[in-house]
């Protein structure tokens, strides 16, 4: 049994390399606050421990962060308040100038582009959604959404037509002439989302977009985001302090603590293989069946009869009821229909009950 699990696990970890190009990358990015921080970190060539920082009387909000976000991926940066996640995303969009390191946008150093180029980039290729919506109080919904287009000098008819398109997309039709204060929090954030989409950006920064909403609305908006992403395929950098939200939405998650990224991986990798106790603490209460895939639970086919077929990426929760009812193992088949292993009902039951020896903690 143990051997089988190990092969399953290594199969899960040895997934094929993501073929999508890297859209946005951070290379040893630092944001250090304090006197002469630029020189200080520069002379060290971007290497310093937290003890070094403390000794110099500096505050490291973001410390040697390396990230690669691939095109079309939902990349979540998760951390508690004060972990530096907001500062990091502002470094990535250059709202804050990093103290050290490079931020690459399609391989080009974003920190070296001129102000005019940066404005062009932001006007056409980046969008951002804010925690407290940041809607302009003096403009109505339609004008708010058309605002990014209007500062580009696009004429009224054209920009309003585009604004109406995105209003339709986020389901706000009929609210065009309302002012932000007349809308509920969820509706306001829909406006924020629509506004950031009006310019058809490629990279989409979402800074805790749902944190100011109450739980039911938050869930609804998460579904909405997944729906939109299914249509739009943006490259998304999403900030949150809510691990459940991260797991629901993420392709990959980077967990931050004290300005550092302590682990990057898929939700499954984090749950199955937490790098530190800190990460394990987050993953402890996660419903494992919703995160772990058939691939990590499968073992080599024993040759018996199969009660059904599942894809390697299928989450256990999606077929747990079926497999337990069938009472027979399910075959795990790859894209060509060839079985690469099987999942037994017992393994699923063990996982659901939390008595599996691998990841479950007391």
């Amino acid at each position, binding site marked *: 049994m143990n051997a089988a699990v190990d092969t399953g696990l290594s199969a899960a970890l040895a997934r094929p390399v993501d073929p999508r190009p890297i859209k946005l990358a951070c290379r040893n990015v630092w944001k250090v606050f304090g006197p002469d921080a630029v020189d200080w970190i520069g002379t060290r060539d971007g290497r310093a421990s937290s003890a070094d920082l403390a000794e110099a009387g500096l505050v490291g909000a973001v410390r040697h962060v390396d990230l690669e976000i691939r095109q079309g991926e939902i990349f979540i940066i998760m951390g508690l308040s004060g972990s530096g996640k907001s500062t990091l995303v502002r470094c990535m969009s250059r709202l804050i100038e990093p103290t050290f390191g490079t931020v690459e946008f399609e391989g080009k150093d974003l920190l070296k582009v001129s102000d005019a180029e940066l404005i062009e980039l*932001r*006007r056409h290729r980046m969008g*951002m959604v804010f925690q407290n919506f940041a809607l302009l109080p003096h403009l109505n919904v339609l004008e708010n959404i058309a605002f990014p287009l209007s500062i580009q000098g696009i004429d009224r008819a054209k920009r309003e037509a585009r604004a109406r398109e995105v209003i339709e997309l986020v389901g706000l039709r009929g609210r065009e002439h309302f002012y932000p204060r007349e809308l509920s929090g969820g509706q306001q954030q829909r406006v924020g989302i629509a506004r950031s989409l009006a310019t058809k950006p490629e990279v989409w920064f979402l800074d805790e977009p749902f944190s100011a909403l109450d739980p039911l609305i938050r869930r609804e908006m998460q579904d909405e985001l997944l729906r939109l992403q299914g249509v739009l395929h943006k490259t998304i950098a999403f900030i949150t302090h809510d691990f459940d939200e991260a797991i629901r939405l993420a392709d990959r998650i980077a967990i931050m603590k004290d300005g550092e990224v302590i682990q990057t991986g898929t939700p499954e990798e984090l749950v199955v293989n937490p790098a530190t106790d800190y990460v394990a603490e987050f993953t402890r209460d996660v419903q494992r069946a919703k995160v772990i895939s058939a691939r990590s639970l499968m073992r080599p086919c024993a040759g018996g009869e199969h009660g059904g077929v599942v894809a390697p990426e299928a989450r256990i929760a999606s077929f747990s009821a079926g497999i337990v009812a069938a009472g027979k193992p399910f075959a795990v088949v790859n894209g060509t229909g060839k079985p690469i292993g099987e999942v037994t009902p017992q393994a699923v039951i063990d996982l659901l009950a939390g008595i599996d020896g691998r990841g479950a903690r007391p």
Partner: protein
Amino acid sequence: MTIATDLGARPSRPLPFWPMVWAAALAAVMVLALLGDRFPALIDYPAAAVVPLTDWVSAIMAWLKANITWLTRSITAILGVPLDFALSLFAKNFKIGAGPEAIVLPRLSWVGIVVAAFLAGRAFGGWKLGALVGGCFLYIALFGKWTSAMLTLGLISIAVPFCIVTGLLIGIWAWRKPWAEKLIVSPSLDLMQTIPTFAYLIPMLILFGNSPVSAMIATAIFAMPPMVRATMLGLSRVPSEIGDFSEMAGCTARQKLWRVLLPSARPTLMVGVNQVIMLALNMVIIASMIGAGGLGYDVLLALRALKVGEAMEAGLAIVALAIALDRLSQAMARRQARGHVHGDAEAGPFWKRYPNLSLALVVLAATTIAGLFIPAFADVPKAITMTTAPAWKAGVSWITINLFDVIEAVRVALILYVLNPVRAFCEGFPWLGAVFLLGLAAFQLGGARLAILVAALTAYCAVTGLWEKTMATVYLVGISAFISCLIGIPIGLWASRSDRVEKIVTPIIDTLQVLPSFCFIIPVVMLFRVGDVTAMIATVAFAVVPAIRYTNHGLRQVPPALMEAAVVSGCTKRQTFFRVQLPLALPEIMLGINQTILMALSMIIICAMIGTRDLGQEVFIALSKADAGRGIVAGLAIAFIGIIADRLFGAWTAKARGKLG
């Protein structure tokens, strides 16, 4: 909680440091006072050592007058164009050409303006506001103050936009450049708001002559600070996310400021606009002394001739104008912040988009043209105007005849038992002792820098030879502010405990606050004639507002959770109030006292018109003699009194706030 530990910790301290220091300091000053008989220089600053600042300032002004008159006169000429236009439009009729052949185009018809005022009120605040604003204008017309009021309004209509634009630009500059704010703008604003209004007039008079233009410039300078402050405050209060958004949307720096930040700050900016309008009205009244004309001039003339009835009537017209302008601009501010038009408001022709404005323009044009043929539209017909002056006069006569003894007894008692002893104490106070004690207080509250500032400003009042007059001012301000607090704080307390009382008090203090300071003097003069008692009573009425307002606000803003916590821990009502509510509200109440003192100061100075013998009188005399040096030096002394009080209270409040966390 912090308070509890604090209270608990205090008695256990081994040696109360500051009380000891203060006891020693007071003893030292007492000795100083006793030695005063032998060394009079300790009490009164020796006349021989007076720094001739007055002469220096006069010399500078003389030089300026000789050398830049060409500039100031050209400015006068340029600014005179829009001002003349506004004055002609509202009050004077347009005259083209000269002599008997001159073509006279009429001013706007009074009927049209009343209707336009009504429409403006209705557009921004419904029928009720329309009736109020229209009613105020109608009142002015019917009581025969139309032309004067329109002169005042014309001046304001030019000064206010100037203030708003300039104030906005300065505010933006200060917001962008922290060094400019710290080194230039903030100190200038402090000085501009504490220098007495009269002191503004003197250099204006010398540089720009006795004309409506110099009155307008003085008004503009006086009324600008709230706009600058509102701009800085509004911009700094815009959430940082909105700034981030504008950058991410790809705004240029200019777009960010004008299309995102300033519109987002609009509610705060509109508060600034309201304050600018009210201050401009206040100043235009005072500037009547250097040629502004209008309602203020009517009051001035009547007061000089002791025609209390006429003064009262002109004063009431000022009140009507003030209330109309205040309510209207407040409604505009609220409306801008609300804006709720659903539907495509942008479509359609002009008159459909702005129905009220269009209607007002049509009515103005129609009535003005009608005025060419029907005189009743051009001028308020004599037949429908009325006057209450005789009634006021009769009322005052009746009171003087019947209640003379009572009033006189009150007056004499106040003078004998309150004013004179305090005055004697203040005037006998050694200047060196004052410098020392105020410096010590500043050191305790705000450290060495504040101590040096306060001591230096106090010393200024002495070395310029104005010590006696300074103390005369301090004594009147002190008494008035004290009585204001004695009346205001209990009322504020009462209002904070009862919603019904608050509902009654709020509109009263709101109205008191918009009245130009001039108006407070008139009714008091009618009863108490001129002198210190009148000045004191008028000042108390004027300065009581912040004491009430801040006390009420401070007590009401104590978080209910803390009050509940106190009740749950078993506090009696008295304990809840004294141990929890009051300590938490104290910083706010102190702020109110601070404001009361500053307002009392500004009012006392205006009371120079009714014969006080303090710094205000010094400035007033300098104004009538166009003696710049004397006026400016005394004006600065007044400003410094205000700044000292403000800094000491400010440091105290900051300290108390810091303790509360």
